[in-house]
């Protein structure tokens, strides 16, 4: 027994929406400090599984423990960071990158405390870690889709969480930023943070994530070293790991020396 409780512990857990089970009868333990990739095809239940860990999907059966407490009972939930799959920056009212990322810090501060100097520095560092330092005070709505995803990653990083759950943090993010993210994750993983990363492209993060869990039709089809996961993950057959992830913007200029990571500022 390690002194710290496992970061995640599922026993016969069934998770779903309403009364419809999606992830069924899952046993999974993630030790403190582990770095786990969650793989699987579209609709297999990866997002549902991670939402179950956050109390956003209903635990219909079995038990789900996060950081030693049943899900929803954890007292200081600021210890958990989360990057949702669907990006949901509302955009109805303008907000800056700094403000959105700052939300990540709030949960640690209880109900009334304001962001102090340390908190503000953590926010700036988190934004810098995703390569948006020069956009700190720009409205989020003026950023590209991939940049907005990076803001959400920064929001999770700003919490300096013990457990970081990321749902496809690299989707729509260009190769250079993926590498930067990999470096950031490597650093926080080394400092003891537990990582659970849902992804379709484990290659860019292969240096960080050591263990893989493959979800298939709501059940865990594989649990072991990342290198062995390829045979179990249908998706990886179609996209062998050597393949460089393609940036999702087709109009990225090739004349610049470094990869251009921003959408054109002109539109």
């Amino acid at each position, binding site marked *: 027994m390690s002194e710290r409780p496992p970061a995640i512990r599922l026993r016969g857990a069934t998770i779903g929406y309403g009364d419809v089970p999606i992830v069924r009868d899952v046993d999974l333990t993630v030790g403190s400090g582990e770095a786990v990739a969650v793989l699987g095809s579209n609709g297999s239940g990866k997002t549902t599984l991670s939402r179950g860990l*956050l*109390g*956003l999907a209903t635990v219909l059966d079995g038990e789900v423990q996060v950081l030693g407490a049943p899900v929803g009972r*954890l007292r*200081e*939930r*600021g210890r*958990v*960071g*989360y990057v*949702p799959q669907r990006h*949901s*920056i*509302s*955009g*109805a*009212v*303008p*907000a*800056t990158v*700094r*403000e*959105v990322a*700052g*939300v*990540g810090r*709030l*949960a640690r501060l209880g*109900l*009334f405390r*304001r*962001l102090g100097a340390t908190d503000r520095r953590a926010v700036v560092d988190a934004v810098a870690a995703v*390569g*948006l330092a*020069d*956009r700190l*005070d*720009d*409205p989020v*709505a*003026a950023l590209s889709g991939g940049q907005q995803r990076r803001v959400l990653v920064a*929001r999770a990083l700003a*919490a300096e969480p013990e457990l970081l759950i990321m749902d496809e943090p690299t989707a729509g993010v260009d190769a250079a930023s993926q590498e930067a993210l990999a470096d950031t994750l490597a650093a926080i993983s080394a400092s003891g943070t537990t990582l659970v990363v849902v992804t379709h492209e484990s290659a860019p993060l292969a240096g960080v994530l050591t263990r893989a869990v493959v979800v298939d039709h709501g059940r865990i089809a594989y649990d072991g070293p990342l290198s062995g996961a390829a045979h179990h993950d249908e998706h990886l057959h179609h996209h062998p790991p050597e393949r460089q992830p393609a940036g999702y913007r087709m*109009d*990225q*200029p090739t*004349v*610049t*020396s*470094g990869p*251009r*990571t*921003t959408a*054109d*500022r*002109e*539109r």
Partner: protein
Amino acid sequence: MGLLDYDFMQRALLASLMVGLVAPAVGVFLVQRRLSLLGDGLGHVALTGVAVGVLTATSPVWTALVAAILGAVLIELVRARGRTSGDVALAVLFYGGIAGGVVLLSLAPRGQATNLDSYLFGAITTTSPQDVAVFAGISVVVLLSVALLGQRLYAVSDDEEYARAVGLPVLGLNVVLAALVASTVVLSMRVVGLLLISALMILPSAIAQLLARSFRETVLLACLIGVLVSVSGTATSFYTGTPSGGTIVLLAIALFLLVTSAVTLRESTARRRHRRRVDVHDAHPHEHGTACGHPPVPHGDHVDYDHDGHLHAPHHTGRGVHYDEHGGHPVAAPPNR
């Protein structure tokens, strides 16, 4: 005689100042969570409260406050249960509130229910010194709550799911916000009337969000605009003899149209300026690159090229590449909505 020589006008202006400050400070959060009509719904519920007050001969301000807060809490609980959409719950409140109010008022003894209009459309000049005191109390409570909880309210309004995931007390904050809205509704009852309350919560932030870059800026600007239209509308209504509520709302709408067209104009001239710049460099002899001889200058997240003293940033469009002037400092991105 001037405006301020009348006691009732002094009170009216004081009331409109408070409303102008408070309503937008709460309204911004409603706009952000796309619940702009919540204020309206609670305004209707407040009418039931007013009717109860009239029937039981208690002060309608208090009964309206109680009714609006009960309605607010109810609607948040319904929304949280998730079985009924916020939309439908609002509709039920809307109609239930106004129907209840009208029916109850009809039961009041003759001669007592005559001032329905003044609650529906406002009657700022009837503001009594006691009203002013109550309004001041409500204003202080609401502004303090926003100052204290603003960041959390922002977090919940911005991304409720994330807030829940990281353990912010989402339901509690939603109930607090709804209660703040309810208090604002009652506060605004005299000034703009129950039917026009949402306008003063929503319009100032609709204007502010066209101009501001951050949430904080939006809140402050919205409050400023709110005070401006509320006080000047009340003053105008004194001279024109028009109802204060309608006058204030028309002023706000005029300002909204003005700012919208100014922003549109600015964007279209920005487009024209951009095109002119592009003309100059359309006949660019080469594509800048590592070997072209123009020094590359890293600029934020991309590379500009120093072209005879000005910075060129490659701009790839469907029609090929042209070069934008990036000057010496980052250009602000135009709002892309």
